[in-house]
């Protein structure tokens, strides 16, 4: 037997870098694609060619991989054994017994080759007996054995593979992994199976990826059916696109098979060139470099296919991201609730203002105003005793209860709207639907109640905010503090109305409060400016009005924040961020880079 020298090995060096980077980029995009709902690429032909063929083989010693493939019980193991000259894979009369690929290597190859990298998806294990291939306890192993006779060409690897049409679908998958790595496929066909859809699909993929295919028609009623073979082969070629490099026939001889013997008759009339060479010799003496280059180029062709290849997958990512942008817009439009808070007890803001004013007032002022306050207190006490008024504490209690009601209603409304949005958009339904359906909604309300109970009517944050606002105002309008004083009569407070919305950009809509009150990530809290003490404020000069508005707006925003936090932390979790991330996936740099690398790889491949 002749073996091609190392020196003749084709050089893929320039190409190797681009392929490796392309794989990296695809790896980074794969989880993104999965979360976008794009079909799993690992079942696509381009993925198999890229990861099973190009990446493992572009930078390694160019071994020539020949795989024996076919349907259940067609004699694959028998043919493999006859090719490598000894029984490495058990042959049985029962179907679908070969569960693991078995590789025969030339001596010394295992030591210098990373077989796990060469055959991705498999764990290489050394051969112990021919029963290894039928071991039901092992999973995803590739059994290897070095040729004991020293006859096998140095660069040739011959594999027996599991079936491609049986009831165990894992076998199909393992055979596909081996096929992807192979340069030469020995297609074992029978007259029962050569036109089965599963068999056709398997070999059509091999032909599309530029593999060299040698066809063996096994279990032929020899020689009676010899003249039938041409017709079978023509059908097979038309269906799969396989141009057989050579054709052989194996007679149906059960007794010989039981004894482990098989004779393969070359069919020169169907073989290009018409030469009669035994199968083992043909494998050993082929033009390895040409076959190898052809298989690599074929794999690249599969990857570069504009519709079925990698580009198609990138397009699908673009389309999915665009779909998510629509979903995001829908959510922004629909996920918007109006909360009508009850009128706040008017002291809450005024008390803070009074506290701020206290050290700034003259003695006379203080006496007068404390007189007013005493009288006011007396009046409200009397009213309360008569049952026509409520005390300040009771008013605060009433307010807290009514406010919680309003927040609960808003939460219920919001959940309804989310349900609607999920029903109208499949993507939202998939992402948020399970969350909405399986979560314990009682916990959401409990969370809202907890947050509401934990937020005092006037928080430290709000005090700081009011003081800062008043300080700023006093510094800007030194003469107006008196006017403020004059304006601070008891004023009525208009019902604050807030809109809570899901904003993709996290836009904050309460400028006054933005500096002090935290803003919940993706929630805008907009407050329709509530007006306080209108009559009084209108009497004062223009400068006060915006100040008062801001003071009340800041307070309302802080109340609304409770609901926003519950929505964000408990109801939606990271759902909104996730949607934002998905919607922006289309502009990821990896997509551009992948397209660029794809062009580069195709060019370097030649």
């Amino acid at each position: 037997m002749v073996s091609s020298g190392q020196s003749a090995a084709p050089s893929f060096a320039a190409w190797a870098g681009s392929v490796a980077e392309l794989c990296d980029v695809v790896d980074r995009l794969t989880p993104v694609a999965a979360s976008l709902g794009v079909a799993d690429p690992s079942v696509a032909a381009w993925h198999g060619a890229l990861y099973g063929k190009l990446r493992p083989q572009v930078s390694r010693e160019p071994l020539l991989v020949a795989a024996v493939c076919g349907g259940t019980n067609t004699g694959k193991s028998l043919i493999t054994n006859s090719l490598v000259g000894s029984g490495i894979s058990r042959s049985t009369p029962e179907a679908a017994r070969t569960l693991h690929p078995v590789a025969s290597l030339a001596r010394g190859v295992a030591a210098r080759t990373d077989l796990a990298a060469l055959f991705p998806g498999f764990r290489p294990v050394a051969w112990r007996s021919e029963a290894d291939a039928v071991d039901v306890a092992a999973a995803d192993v590739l059994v290897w054995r070095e040729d004991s006779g020293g006859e096998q060409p140095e660069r040739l690897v011959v594999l027996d593979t599991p079936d491609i049409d049986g009831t165990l679908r894992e076998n199909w998958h393992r055979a596909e992994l081996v096929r992807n790595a192979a340069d030469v496929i020995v297609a074992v066909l029978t007259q029962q199976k050569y036109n089965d859809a599963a068999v056709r699909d398997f070999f059509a993929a091999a032909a599309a990826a530029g593999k060299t295919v040698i066809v063996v028609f096994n279990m032929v009623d020899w020689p009676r059916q010899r003249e039938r073979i041409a017709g079978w082969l023509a059908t097979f070629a038309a269906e799969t696109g396989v141009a057989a490099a050579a054709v052989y026939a194996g007679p149906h001889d059960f007794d010989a098979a039981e004894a482990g013997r098989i004779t393969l008759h070359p069919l020169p009339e169907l073989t290009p060139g018409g030469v009669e060479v035994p199968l083992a010799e043909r494998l050993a003496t082929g033009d390895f470099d040409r076959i190898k280059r052809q298989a690599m180029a074929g794999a690249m062709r599969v990857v570069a296919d504009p519709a079925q290849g990698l580009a198609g997958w990138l397009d699908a990512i673009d389309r999915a991201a665009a779909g998510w942008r629509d979903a995001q817009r829908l959510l922004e439009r629909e996920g918007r609730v109006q909360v009508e808070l009850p009128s706040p007890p008017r002291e809450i803001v005024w008390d803070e203002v009074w506290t701020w004013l206290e050290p700034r007032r003259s003695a006379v002022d203080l006496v007068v105003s404390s007189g007013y306050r005493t009288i006011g207190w007396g009046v409200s006490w009397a009213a309360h005793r008569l049952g026509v008024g409520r005390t300040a504490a009771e008013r605060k209690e009433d307010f807290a209860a009514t406010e919680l009601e309003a927040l609960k209603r808003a939460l219920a409304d919001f959940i309804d709207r989310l349900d609607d949005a999920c029903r109208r958009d499949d993507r939202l339904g998939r992402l948020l639907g399970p969350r909405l359906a399986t979560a314990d909604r009682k916990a959401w309300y409990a969370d809202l109640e907890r947050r509401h109970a934990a937020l005092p009517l006037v928080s430290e944050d709000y005090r700081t905010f009011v003081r800062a606002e008043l300080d700023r105002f006093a510094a800007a309008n030194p003469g107006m503090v008196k006017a403020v004083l004059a304006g601070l009569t008891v004023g009525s407070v208009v019902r604050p109305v807030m809109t809570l919305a899901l904003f993709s950009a996290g836009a904050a809509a309460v400028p006054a409060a933005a500096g002090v009150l935290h803003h919940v990530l993706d929630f805008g809290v907009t407050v329709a400016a509530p007006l306080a003490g209108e009559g009084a404020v209108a009497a004062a000069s223009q400068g006060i009005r915006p100040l008062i508005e801001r003071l009340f707006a800041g307070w309302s925003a802080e109340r609304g924040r409770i609901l926003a936090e519950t929505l964000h932390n408990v109801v939606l979790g990271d759902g909104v961020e996730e949607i934002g991330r998905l919607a922006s996936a289309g502009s990821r740099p990896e997509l551009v880079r992948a397209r660029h690398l794809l062009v580069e790889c195709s060019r370097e491949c030649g």
Partner: protein
Amino acid sequence: MDTPTGSTSSTPAAEPDFAAFDLLVEALGRWAPSGPAWPPARRVKSEWEGVAPRLDKARLELSRVLVVGVVGGTGTGKSTLVNALAGSEVSTAGDVARPTTINPVVVAARDVDVSWLPLDVMQARLVRSDSPAVANIVLVDCPDPDTQATAGTPSAESSKPSAANRNRDLLEAVLPACDVLLLVSTAQKYRSWIVAREVATFAPGRPLLFVQTHASRDPDIRDDWRKELESQGFDVPRIFRIDGVEAAARMAAGLEPEPGFRDLVAAIDGELAGRAARRVRRTGALDLAAWFTRQARTDLAASGELVAALATGVNAERSRLEAILARSISETLRTNRSAWQRLIADDVVARWHGGPFASFLHVIAALGSLWSRVRPGTGVVGRLLAGQSVSGTARDGGWKAVEELGLPAGEVEQSRSVLAGLAARAGMQEPLVGRARLDDATASAATAALVDRAGAWLSAGIDRLVVERRARVGRTAFHWLFEVLFSTLLVTVLVRAGWNFFHGNLWEGKPVSGIGFLEEAIVWVILWGLLLRWLIFALVRLGLDRDIQGLVGSVASSRLVDPLLADFAVAAAAASTWIDEGTRLGVEADRLASGCGEMPGLGRLRRPGT
């Protein structure tokens, strides 16, 4: 399903219980389409629509001959076997091209009427045969399932010859007409995935015969095939092993058939012809019904738990809302002491007539009613206590009236939102159940119902309390005791005044003490009257708080908040009743299926494969 069937189940070889089976099919026919508008129910319904015609057919066409479909992968020798059974080449067989058989071939004896077979739907060719092997059955040579392109193969490949191959579609059009499947396989194809998938789809309710062909060339794989079939859920009583080519040659030559083929012909004759046909059809139908109910039960098992969770949730939320309502009503009733008092006073006063004390009370009551006109009762409870009607208030008020009762809309929406979540988990959506926020029409109907119920319940409760309390003071003797007590002072005053006038003034000539004494006396009389009135009311008020508590405790039993959660409660109850009925029918189907006669030579699909 009350037909006594105990005796049949004890004898394994007995005929299936026909009457019970007919009742079962009828019950299933009523049950399957009657589920709520709910995805699991829709799945069951559509599954039933595939099964029902077959069950009907089994009942109506009991005496027809069995249709035996010969199925298997291409090249396994289906046509060769059909030719051997038919005794002549009725269907093209061979190795020239795959697939060989495109259009199905139906083989029937000359005297068998096959007008009921939908030959056009099956795109089949009818061939008559005199062979004794097909004298009592109709044999169908089916297309193969494995040469048609798999779904999802790109259309760009339409130039290939297989693009026109519709054999699997044809097979799926033929198999519905078959009663029995004759599954043919070879050493190469007995583990074919695509054949296994097609057979699994059509095997429920269709007894099977298994045949390994190519006996003269292939090894005997029957033991391994049996294992494979059993792992797919089949009962495999026996597998025949024949060589179709040889059998056909011997039949043509008029020779004695080989043993494997003879066994197969004998089995067809014994298991599928004549009286056996009725049993096979019945058993197949019963298997099918049992299969359908088992699938339905498996599908509904998970849904059943979720429906139960919804029902539990409805109860929990109802209790929560009732507690809120009860707390608030109790608070209102307790704080309206004056209203209670007036209510009971008015009642007592209205019943006491005659006597100075009664007149005194009437006067006080008249003055009191002036005050109540100034400050009428507020809220539903207030109006009830003030003796006003509440019906009709909800219609214009809606939520307002409910909130006045003390049930805030926010709490109701919270409950409904929680339940909507549980309903969504069970797959229930609008319109089966509503949303968290009730739409206006539903809301006003539900709140009106709630207020009406609350009004009826409260006024009944208040009336009861009032009646009980009136009984304490309502006795005539009691009335007269107070009249006497009151009159004593009055009489004393009058006597004293008379004494002063007649004895003191006229007799002793003292000056009349004037109007001063009378003024003083009137004040004392009024005070005395008020004291007595207070005594009566104290007696009446005794234990009022406890009784209010008792009244409020009956909120749960009066189902006040039901109208607000009715959609969820109704949906959960309907689904659960429906599932329970399905379970009951499934148990019945299993009982009938396990009790009916065995078919010793025929295989059956018992359960889904692994």
